[in-house]
């Protein structure tokens, strides 16, 4: 079971933003978080990943406490069993598809396994600049699964793709997630995408679960 209850005050220039979100998700589930731009979806994912330090609250993954403000516990991203697919994929430009995945796995066998799972074997020696949007998305997904994470965080992974590709890659995302059995959170501003792909949906508005 993933449980989170997070509060954070963020400031970007003159703009103040408060995130206050709580939810729990059964292990193996796929939670969709929907919301307009600026509603706090990405900030919530970054808090769960340990990239932001919340002001208060807790994050519990199974028996592990990743964050608890009352006990003074904060695990950095390296100590959390997570995989994060960034909105723009954040692939390492100086590494090939194989290199990007191998960076996460540290192991040839596991890398080959993920290349097969994501159907990237034929382009394993290509660099990110030579890839299409869909290939980049699958590389980012394979890389995020490299550490065998307990929690997979997907930050609008389909938003940079055109309509046809979004549909087919959404299906592929479901297949890959089902095969890996990982608990996942998918963030998107698209209602259709969320309801089609996720088993559970919450909506964020102005930093709060509505």
């Amino acid at each position, binding site marked *: 079971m993933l449980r989170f209850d997070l509060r954070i005050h963020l400031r970007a220039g003159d703009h103040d933003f408060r995130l206050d979100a709580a939810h729990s998700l059964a292990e193996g589930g796929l939670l969709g978080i929907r919301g307009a731009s600026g509603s706090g979806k990405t900030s919530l994912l970054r808090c769960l990943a340990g990239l932001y330090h919340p002001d208060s609250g807790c994050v519990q993954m199974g028996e592990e406490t990743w964050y608890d403000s009352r006990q003074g516990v904060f695990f950095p*991203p390296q100590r959390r069993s997570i995989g994060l697919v960034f909105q723009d994929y*954040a692939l390492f*430009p100086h590494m090939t598809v194989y290199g990007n995945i191998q*960076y996460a796995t540290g192991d040839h066998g596991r890398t080959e396994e993920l290349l097969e799972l994501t159907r990237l074997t034929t382009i394993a020696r290509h660099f990110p600049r030579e890839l299409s949007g869909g290939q980049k998305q699958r590389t980012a997904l394979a890389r995020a699964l490299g550490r065998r994470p307990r929690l997979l965080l997907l930050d609008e992974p389909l938003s940079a793709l055109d309509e046809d590709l979004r549909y087919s890659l959404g299906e592929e995302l479901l297949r890959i997630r089902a095969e890996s059995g990982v608990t996942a959170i998918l963030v998107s501003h698209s209602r259709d995408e969320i309801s089609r792909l996720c088993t559970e949906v919450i909506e964020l508005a102005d930093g709060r679960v509505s």
Partner: protein
Amino acid sequence: MSFDPVPFRVSFQLGIWVTSLLLILCFPLAWVFARSRRRWVVWIESVTTLPLVLSPTVLGFYLLILLSPRGPVGSFFLSVFHVRLAFSFPGIVIAGCLASLPFMLSALRTGILSVPSQLLDASYTLGKGRIETIFRVVVPNMKSGIMAGIINTFAHTLGEFGVVLMIGGSIPGVTKVVSIAIYERVESLNFGDAHVYAGILIVISYGGVLLLNRLQRREAKR
């Protein structure tokens, strides 16, 4: 006086020492300048930029006081390492490092900032620590920043005059660098040799700048 190639050897040795030391010493500092949001950083950053705007003789004067055998740094080196800093090669290496510090720092800082922070975040979420992230993600993606630091620092050190003269004087084969040799040839009206020294310096500096520009253009195309 006839043409003497030794000042080139001294200048090259000085350039290699200063560039190598600064490359290692400046990286952590450039990292702090680029990534830290603490308020005191701007104060330190301003101090490290001073050699860019300060007269070399002012820098040289205070360095001479610090590095002389009676100065705090000079007496420490003399008593602990038995190394005399004033009017010696190690002394002009220290002086060259201080004079060229802003060139290396600024290039490395720009290079670090050119690496998107998302790549660092991605590396952290993949379980990697800061040191591994720096060596495997940041450094390979800031090659042109590193090259700019190396070339600018080396070229600036080759042409360094005021600070080196104040600290090292003009000891042949030890502290007499090319720029000092040019100054002495001009003083003795030996314009022929001065032209040769200056011409070689111009060619080397132009070659360095040309190499840097080509590297940066190639990187921009990627």
